[in-house]
């Protein structure tokens, strides 16, 4: 039955996340925006016990041979709600502060990649550290200076030399790269090509641990928003890692039909795009809440939802438009997550929610600044920060343009060759 009731156990966790957002994150939101790259340790320590606990349960479940398929975590009969839960938590935390949320100590995308294609030994070796007492981070290294949306342009190489892979290249826009390599004994997953002539088929993910010689952080980016989060440029200069740090099949299947390394990367998008959408929509909700609150508190304006559009004031109509965009994007995100939980293919829905959320949060926060006027533009209030934080969501995990292409290819039945 079509139903919008959140399961109780999720609702409870969301309520807790909202508490953290309100009491741990919000009060420090401006501070970490201004002190770019400072680590919000109070938030990190608040989150760590449950992150570690979750990581332990996920890892143990993954290592129990029978239940790796994951349609139900603890042998219970209730339907899987992993992704539904995830997007709700992230939405709530991003309502608190999207930059701080990105510093959440966890294996992040690196962990997702290892969980998806790692061997049991790799999982144990690389992921056990995320279950201990010390906050630890993982990070994904994909983008390069000349390879953004076009990941096939990646030039970082991995050359087999005896028992080791030798990595050379430069990665940029690595979220939490500094935290993974310098602030904790974390890991990063690096996409590199084992055969530059093989195109995407030659691209493979490698796990690099903190402390590996030849891995240096060249700089941390100064950004428009999400400034609490570190965005690293990492250089690999003959960085040597053991042979078994490669994830998945090391063979290059040269046929265009088997770009499996890359396919692995693409598949994670189905899971990560709803997560980015959820984060975007947390920011959007923050902006809407704040706008409505000030309109009501300072000017006594309450939005009249039952009055026809043409009889509304301009401010009322703006708020309603903001809310409609926001809610549509959020329901698309819920659906994409729900499909994932159901084991249904959700590439279309993932891109849809990402497109709509990225666009919605950008427009909503820009409009919120306008609606609040001189207050919106001032750093005495957080609205201007949310506008700055918002914009990244139309860019990372696939720009709005890339995701429109994904949607169009799906509905038109075109390959990426036919429609590019």
């Amino acid at each position, binding site marked *: 039955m079509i139903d*919008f009731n959140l399961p109780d156990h999720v609702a409870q966790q969301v309520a807790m996340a909202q508490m953290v957002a309100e009491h741990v994150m919000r009060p420090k939101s401006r501070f970490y925006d201004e002190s770019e790259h400072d680590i919000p340790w109070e938030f990190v320590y608040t989150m760590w016990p449950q992150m570690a606990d979750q990581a332990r349960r996920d890892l143990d479940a993954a290592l129990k041979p029978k239940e790796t398929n994951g349609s139900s975590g603890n042998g219970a009969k209730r339907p899987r709600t992993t992704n539904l839960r995830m997007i709700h938590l992230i939405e709530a935390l991003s309502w608190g502060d999207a930059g701080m949320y990105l510093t959440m100590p966890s294996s992040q995308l690196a962990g997702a990649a290892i969980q998806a294609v790692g061997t049991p030994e790799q999982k144990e070796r690389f992921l056990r550290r995320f279950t201990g007492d010390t906050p630890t981070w993982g990070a994904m290294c994909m983008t390069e200076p000349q390879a953004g949306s076009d990941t096939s342009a990646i030039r970082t190489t991995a050359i087999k030399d005896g028992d080791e892979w030798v990595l050379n290249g430069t990665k940029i826009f690595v979220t939490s790269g500094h935290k993974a390599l310098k602030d904790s004994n974390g890991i990063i997953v690096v996409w590199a090509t084992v055969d530059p002539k093989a195109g995407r088929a030659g691209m493979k993910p490698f796990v690099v641990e903190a402390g590996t010689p030849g891995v240096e952080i060249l700089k941390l980016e100064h950004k428009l928003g999400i400034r609490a989060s570190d965005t690293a440029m990492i250089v690999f200069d003959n960085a040597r890692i053991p042979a078994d740090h490669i994830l998945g099949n090391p063979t290059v299947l040269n046929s265009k039909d088997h770009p499996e390394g890359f396919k692995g990367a693409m598949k994670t998008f189905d899971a990560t795009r709803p997560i980015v959408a959820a984060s975007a929509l947390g920011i959007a909700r923050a902006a809407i809440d704040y706008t409505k609150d000030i309109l009501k508190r300072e000017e006594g304006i309450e939005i009249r939802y039952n009055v026809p559009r043409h009889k509304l004031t301009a401010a009322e109509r703006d708020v309603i438009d903001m809310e409609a965009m926001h809610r549509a994007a959020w329901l698309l995100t819920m659906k994409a997550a729900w499909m994932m939980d159901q084991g249904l293919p959700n590439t279309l829905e993932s891109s849809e929610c990402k497109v709509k959320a990225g666009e919605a949060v950008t427009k909503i926060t820009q409009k919120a600044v306008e609606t609040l006027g001189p207050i919106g533009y001032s750093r005495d209030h957080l609205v201007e920060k949310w506008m700055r934080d918002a914009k990244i969501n139309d860019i990372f995990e696939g720009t709005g343009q890339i995701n429109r292409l994904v949607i169009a290819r799906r509905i038109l039945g075109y390959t990426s060759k036919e429609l590019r």
Partner: protein
Amino acid sequence: MVSFAATEEQEMIVDSVRDFAREQLRNVMREADDSGDIPADIIETGWGLGIVPALIPEQYGGFAGEYSAVTGALVGEELAYGDLAGAVYLLSPLSVAIPILLGGTEEQKHEYLPRFAADTFVPATAALIEPRITYDPMDMYTTAVKDGDVYLLNGAKAYVPLAASAGMMLVWAKEGDTTQGFLVDLGAAGITIGEREKNMGIKGLPTYKVRFQDVHVSPKCKLGGEAGVDFETMLDHSRVAMSALAVGVGKAALEYAMTYAKEREAFGAPIATRQAIAFMLAEMQTDLDGGRLLVWEAAWRLDQGLEATREARLAKTFMDDTALMCGDRSVQILGGHGYIRDHPVELWLRNARAFGVLDGLAMV
């Protein structure tokens, strides 16, 4: 527990409606737009699907179904995908039946609901929209004033579907500060049914201006009796229903444009392979999928008895714009071919424009 899957029962209803809408309504759509008439046998076939009688509980002579706004939304989308004029025509009895079901007194239910369990189409209509640019369903110009034993109705309505053929009409009027419904006989003194209206779109649906001059209505014909009804909830239902229809129209336009864009070649390749066209289609798809979920959520809240005015408004706001966007873009994608009546997209553009304009036209 969150779910986006319809029930099996809903799937069955939707399947039968879909077949009817695609094979029958769609086939007469263009002709109905030209002639202003939807063939009676099509309407009877549609009635035969049992959508309306299925909603009437057993004690009132129906098939014991339970009214569900979610099911209504699913059905509405499919019908409007076939043809909007046909959908509103076929479902017009609901704009009387549903308010009675939701807010009528027990006597009113017993008196009126069994009529809708008939085997043949029961023309009935609601007079809500007013011919004013500041038309506001929550603040009508048409008034109902208690005068001794009766209510006197005065005012003017527009876009009243089937007014010339309907036996029963539910008139919405301002009584004090609220909007209340009055069941009137179309033959009552003081009612003047004007010429059939000429509208930009939904031309297969006959609509009329209706004037009320000191029309006497017995208090027992006031919906919900002395206390009246909570009109806002009725309006929520109507807005959700209209938005569901909007999804259907938008989807029709999208699919047609998509097919055309894949077939039409320019500069050596199908135009769908150009980003300008492909992105338009991707955005139409995304917004229709998002809008559909807004409709479902608002409908679900209504079914749960939850406050849904905000959600209905969000769904309507979003779908008013999205349907128009889809209609407009489908014409644009077909270019010159979209501008001529050999293709249906110009019709959908005209129909789509109805949504932001005719608030309360239908209740599904």
